């Protein structure tokens, strides 16, 4: 059993904050150093307590807009060794792209639904604390949907099963955990992962970096969208 991960939680809703704190501490794999309600308090706590990772809400006082993302950027800049997972209600990919606009290392974007999946949540915190990246599959879906409208786009070539694997990969899962989640054999997962990287023309990379690679690819602008009326159905 590794040392519990030391984290700080930022969430303005008291019930949610305490619920998540209890959930994580009950797991025994995480120590919550502090729970705060605003981004300012968060930055203060990070400076004082030096956690390994931060779990923060996206909307907090005073403006209830994107304080969590701004705080994540600030933390990553001031303390590159601290990972940040942003919890969000927004399924709009725009927020994830905003979070990752300066690079995805040590950053994670999860929907709040994930608090129900303790393993995924803890794993994401561990992943970002080691410089990895985590993206909620919902966001991957949205990005892929947008890209795969263009038949020429590489994403359009991915099979549904490969997309399933991609979603799990985005959560920072190792091949072993993907096998577990999708009830697939080790070789099948490996085959799908290789196919994904080949189809997207992304050079094979370590598990730790492959989410970042996929994200980098997704953030690249797709080919020119098809003009109206110029293509046969």
């Amino acid at each position: 059993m590794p040392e519990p991960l030391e984290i700080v939680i930022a969430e303005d809703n008291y019930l949610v904050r305490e619920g998540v704190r209890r959930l994580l501490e009950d797991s025994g794999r995480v120590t919550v150093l502090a729970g705060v309600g605003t981004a300012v308090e968060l930055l203060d706590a990070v400076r004082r307590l030096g956690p390994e990772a931060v779990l923060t809400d996206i909307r907090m006082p005073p403006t209830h807009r994107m304080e969590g993302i701004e705080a994540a950027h600030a933390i990553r800049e001031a303390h590159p060794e601290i990972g940040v997972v942003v919890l969000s209600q927004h399924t709009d990919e725009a927020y994830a792209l905003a979070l990752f606009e300066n690079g995805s290392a040590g950053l994670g974007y999860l929907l709040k639904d994930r608090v129900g999946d303790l393993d995924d949540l803890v794993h994401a915190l561990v992943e970002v604390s080691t410089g990895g990246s985590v993206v909620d599959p919902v966001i991957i879906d949205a990005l892929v949907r947008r890209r795969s409208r263009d038949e020429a786009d590489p994403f359009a070539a991915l099979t549904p099963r490969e997309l399933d694997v991609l979603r799990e990969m985005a959560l920072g899962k190792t091949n072993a955990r993907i096998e577990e989640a999708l009830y697939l054999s080790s070789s099948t997962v490996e085959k799908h992962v290789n196919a994904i990287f080949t189809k997207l023309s992304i050079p094979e990379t370590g598990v730790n970096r492959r989410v970042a690679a996929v994200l980098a690819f997704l953030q690249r602008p797709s080919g020119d969208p098809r003009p109206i009326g110029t293509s046969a159905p």
Partner: protein
Amino acid sequence: MIPRKAWFVTLGVLGIGSLSYVFVVQGFVSPDPDPGAGLGWPLVGVLPLYALGMWLLTATSSRVALYVALGATGALVGSAFETLVRTHPDLLTTPGYPYLNTVGITADAVATVGLVLMIGAFPDGVIERQWQRVALGTVWVCLLVAPLTLLTTPHVVLPQYLGLSAEIDNPVVVPWLEWGAPLVDDLVVHPWLPASLGVLVLVSRAFTGDARTRARVRVMACSVLVWMGSWVLWMITLELGLRDTPLGVAAGLMTLSMLAVPVALIHGILRYGAFDVADADRARLVVRSSTTFIAVLYGIAVAAPALLLFDRLEPVSAVLLTALAAVALLPLRGWLQRAVTRAVLGDREHHVALLGELGARLEQAMELDDVLARLAEGVRGGLDASWVRVQVLGADGQAVTSPAGIAGDVVGDAVATQDLIRGDEHLGRLELGPRRRGEYDVAELALLQTVARQATTTVANVRLTARLNEQLDELSASRMRLITAQDEERRRIERNLHDGIQQSVVALIANLGRARQRLQRDELRPLELVELQDQAREMLTDLRELARGIHPQVLSDRGLVAAVESRSSRFPVPLAVIADERARATRFAPDIEAVAFYTVREALANVAKHSGASCARVSLSVDGDRLQVEVVDDGSGFSSGGRGSAGGLTNIRDRVAAVSGELVVDAAPGGGTRIVVDLPLSGAMSESVSVPSTVERPVATDTDDLDAAADAAIPEPALSTDTLAPVHRAEEAARA
């Protein structure tokens, strides 16, 4: 045709010369004791008519004016001849007298002809009937009196009014023509026949002419009848050889009644502009000469009593009488001067009055047709036009028949037109029919321009007010629609919350209760809790979608392009989103972003629901200070008025109008649909800062829906009370 100026000079020299001679001789050298001679006739009987005639010569081009001047001059020359012969009776015996005599009888004939023609052709020289023209034409024969008498009569025919008789042999008589002597005497020498003809023509015109002629001729006819009556009386006394008092009375009556003729002429000028004296380019001359004329009249009237009674008054009494007359007649002179000025220049004063009055009239008018009617009526009255028509031009530049202002009966073509132009906008046209009397002069046309400018402003204002009212109505309707749409949206949200999520929460509570019971009985399995968790997750997803429907948070947080792109990833039809650099880089005012996003959302909803399109495209671009949003699909399109999207389009239109934007819908059945919305980025509504990131924002308002944003964007400030107030007043006035 002898020029008018030559007439004026000739008659002026002859008349003034004769008058001066008579005045000097009769007044100072050898006053004639004979009643009926003396200064009475030339000064009181003839001089006013002469002065009036000469004045008319300068003031009008009427033929009748020449008749008056000619007749009066003839009378003066005749009077001078008589004075000459009466003061030098020995002339009668000189051998040359028969030839000198022709001057006298010709002068009398000229007087007769001039006055008779004046009487018959009054007031404008137009004689209606053939027989009247023939009758008056025969009068000219009288001018041949000199040769006719010289040829036919054995004795020289002395002038009628000489008052002397002598038998002088006619040295050039042609014996075999002597038979014509009585004829010449009756028809030519005596003025009975021509005078009767003139009176007959005048009276027949006064009684049998059309209404206009009757009205104009009646006063002159009465005056002439009085004059002729006293003239006949006087002739009878002369024929009867009566002398002394009877003759004096008859001569005095005749002389005084002669004054009725100039009075009738003046009446005609004042009453209905006889001789076209009101013709405005002569107006100043007329006033000046009439001032002189009135001064002369006044002088005569003041001097007349003393002169008439010259031989019977002591000098002191004469001076007193004259002074009394001067004082007594002074008000009369003033009145006459004012009356003439008013009659002649009245139009000009009226013009100024017209301008002022028209301004006041137009101010009161609120409706366009009312303005046009008042304008037409005012111009017609002011410029004495037979008709006036004012038309406004429609948007296509064609004259609109209604509303139009028409005064008088429009007959024939317009003789003057004036366009109503404001800036480079052609608002309408003002047309004038012929002037009722004479023609329009430069000053009147200039006045027309001024009036037209004034009217243009009013027409523009009234149009503007009407347009404002229309916009106000449209604005009220659009606001009503927005409020209705907002209410419907609220009901929809309430329904979703009540029927959807609330029921799910109830189910979750029930399931949790059941799980607790099963836990107590140790029957609870982990999978059941996973199911409950999934149930809660579904609720969360539902809530998220609902929140997004109320207001896409990404729009406020990440801007228009991010929000549209985010939408595109959920869109069931392949959708391209193209945004230029400025559109991506700029955060627009919240109301503009809200309207633009709403446009895209509604348009895409239409595409998804109705069009059957295989692909669609959203373009966002910034051009100058305009944001252009274009939504294009390759679907079925629609004909305007068809398909269920009309409601959606109306909503878009309302919201776009609320931020002063423009909406263009380009759709044809089978040809796809193109919706372009053009939104202004500058202006009062978008001056707010792009994103108020540091402003405290209560959580509750964070979920403000789009309708609220669009409502806030309704341009209230543009309709401040200042602008609305006149409109309300206008409406009240209209109601009243």
